């Protein structure tokens, strides 16, 4: 019994990501649900159509989640199947690898999104299409941020190897409290608000609520969402190329499948 305990104890203490993983999830869950509870306790009359707004935001968030995780999954699948080296010795440029992953991630996310959108109407009498033409811009913005996170995580996998996998699963949850998915930004403490304004998520979800609740469109929110998306997207591409070069120096690419 003690031997089995030791086997897992050694594993945890030898890996910082595993220790982080133990602390990380409870902290994020408590923070996120704390803000949500706080919001509903103090703003009971904020939503006229609470189910519609919450469900719409849930679908938007799920699309972001699927895009990001979908991208990571494509990369991780190659590591798990020990096919990673085969791919990186194929005559493909890094840009070609990224483009094919980005396109495949979109198809995966859409396959998951369409049934969710279709189900909300008969089950809850709600249509996400109420967001009108701006729905396209919100989805596009979420897609961009999703693949940006995917590229950043993949850069980490290239740089640090499979031990970075836990981070792949947790990036979306780390950002969730700052994304203001289910509550307006004002509910966050001031320091968190400053961080949130540096992310495109807050503009996207604020705008979704603005359209649904106030029936108006604030172009500035959409503009800032795209602006931050552009910044992070370029940063993620630069980081991916940098990580590829580091991996070539450190030998991560050749050891990835072992």
């Amino acid at each position, binding site marked *: 019994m003690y031997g089995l305990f030791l086997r897992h104890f050694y594993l945890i203490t030898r890996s910082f990501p595993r220790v982080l993983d133990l602390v990380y999830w409870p902290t994020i869950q408590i923070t996120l649900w704390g803000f949500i509870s706080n919001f509903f306790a103090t703003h009971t009359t904020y939503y006229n159509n609470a189910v519609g707004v919450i469900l719409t935001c849930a679908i938007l968030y799920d699309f972001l989640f699927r895009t990001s995780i979908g991208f990571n999954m494509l990369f991780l*699948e*190659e590591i798990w*199947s*020990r*096919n*990673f*080296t*085969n*791919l*990186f*010795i*194929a*005559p*493909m*440029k890094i840009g070609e690898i990224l483009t094919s992953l980005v396109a495949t991630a979109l198809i995966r996310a859409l396959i998951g999104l369409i049934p969710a959108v279709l189900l909300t109407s008969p089950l809850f009498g709600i249509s996400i299409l109420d967001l009108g033409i701006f729905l396209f811009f919100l989805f596009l913005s979420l897609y961009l941020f999703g693949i940006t996170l995917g590229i950043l995580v993949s850069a980490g996998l290239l740089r640090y190897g499979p031990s970075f996998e836990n981070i792949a699963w947790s990036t979306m949850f780390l950002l969730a409290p700052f994304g203001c998915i289910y509550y307006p930004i004002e509910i966050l403490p001031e320091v968190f608000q400053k961080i949130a304004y540096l992310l495109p998520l807050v503009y996207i979800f604020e705008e979704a609520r603005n359209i649904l609740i106030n029936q108006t469109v604030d172009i500035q929110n959409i503009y800032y969402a795209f602006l931050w998306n552009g910044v992070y997207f370029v940063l993620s591409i630069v980081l991916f190329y940098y990580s590829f*070069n580091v991996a*070539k*120096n*450190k*030998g991560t*690419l*050749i050891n990835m*499948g*072992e």
Partner: protein
Amino acid sequence: MKNLVEVKNIKKNYGKNEAVKGISFNIKEDEILGLLGPNGSGKTTTIGMLLGLLKPTSGEIMINGQKLEGNRIAILEQINFISPYIELPKKLTVKQNLTVYGKLYKINNINERIEFLSEKLRLGGLLNSITGELSSGQKNRVSLAKALINEPKVLLLDEPTASLDPEVGDFVRSFLEDYKKEKKISILLASHNMNEVTRLCKSILMMKDGIIIDKGNPEELISKHGRKNLEEVFLKLSRSKNELN
């Protein structure tokens, strides 16, 4: 015969650890060069540098007259690799896997190429099988088919017959001999199977601690070291202090 692979004084350091300490060798077309050495001698690092997966700290690699540095994609079109440490996606059928790699290597007549390879490598009945459900010997032949999908001019083999039964091992060795003769390709063979190396290789490099400690053809090495076979030469060199350099 021209040199398809030219390695000039390559070094690879991981921080302070010198994994490869300046080695040079050539592989001619229609030649199989054996790369021998104990674990940790620098064989895998050398292969990684030839594949462009590792950047040499210094030195130069030329493949078919082109520098690897700056021409990685063009060179990758002309080389391929097999190792027991890498596999093809398990959930795909054999044909799907070969088609995927045919596309990645921009092969024009993929179906014809798959048909040719499946006939040569006895894969006919396996094309619609799930790759992950194949035996080790079958998987090995499928990996070989993948490695030949682009008709490589240079083939890098890391333990190509490890864990195969004698019959399949013999089949793979015979296939490689015939294929090399027919296509005039260069093969770098890293192996711990001394009988395999004796049979396939006309020249051998012995590596230890990141340097080439001896080289020659199997008979020369056996005679030079006064041993009965290559395995005894390997043991002697592995246990002794470095002889050359």
